[in-house]
C-alpha cells in the first residue's frame, strides 16, 4: 500500500462516476464524450499502475498505445455520425 495505490484508487473512483453519464446519455454524443474521458483516465491509470508494480517501462508503452487507440476511436465515431445524421437520436436535453 504505497502512494501510487491511493492515486490509482482515486482515478478508478473518478472513472466510475463517468459511467453514470454513459448510461444516462441523453444522446449518442454525450455517451461518446464520456467514453473518451474514460479512455483518457485509463491512460493515467495505466501509467500509475506501472509504478505500483515497479515496472513502468512496460506499462508506459501500453499507455502510449492506448492514447493512440482512444483518439482514433473517437475520431472514427465522430466522422461516422457526421456522415450518417439519421442515426443520431436528437433527444431534447433539459438543463
Amino acid at each position, binding site marked *: 500500500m504505497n502512494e501510487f495505490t491511493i492515486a490509482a484508487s482515486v*482515478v478508478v473512483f473518478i472513472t466510475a462516476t*463517468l459511467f453514470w453519464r454513459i448510461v444516462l446519455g441523453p444522446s449518442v454524443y454525450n455517451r461518446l*464524450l464520456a467514453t473518451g474521458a474514460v479512455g483518457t483516465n485509463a491512460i493515467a491509470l495505466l501509467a*500509475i499502475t506501472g509504478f505500483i508494480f515497479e515496472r513502468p517501462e512496460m506499462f508506459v508503452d501500453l499507455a502510449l498505445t492506448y492514447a493512440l487507440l482512444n483518439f482514433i476511436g473517437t*475520431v472514427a465515431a*465522430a466522422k461516422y455520425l*457526421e456522415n450518417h*445524421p439519421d442515426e443520431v437520436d436528437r433527444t431534447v436535453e*433539459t438543463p
Partner: protein
Amino acid sequence: MNIVGLIVMSVGLFFLGVSSVGLFRLPGFFARVHAVSKSETLGIALVLGGLMIHDGVSLVSFKLALIVVFVAIANPVAAHLLTRAAVRTGILPVSRPPAFASDPNAPPANPNDAARGK
C-alpha cells in the same frame, strides 16, 4: 523530488475530478465538451508530469513526455470533431436555466427553444 512529484500528481487528480464533476453536472452537450476537453488535458498532463518528476531523467520519463504531448494535441482535436459532428447533425444547446422557465418576468425566449419545440 518524491514529495514534489506527489504534489503535482495530486493537483492533476484534482483536475481529473473537476472534469468528472463537470461532465456529471453541466447542462447540455456543449457545456460538457467544454468541461471535458480542457480540464482532462490539464489533469492528465499534471498526473504524468508528477510521474516524470518522480522517475527522474530516464527513458520512461521521455515516453511519458511523448504521451503528454500527444494527449495535448489529440484531446482537443477529438472534442472539436465531436462538437462539429453534433452541430452538423442538429444538436442544439440548452440555452436557459430552469429558474427562468417559470418566471413571468423572464427575458424573451431564445429562438433555439422554439426550434426544439418548447
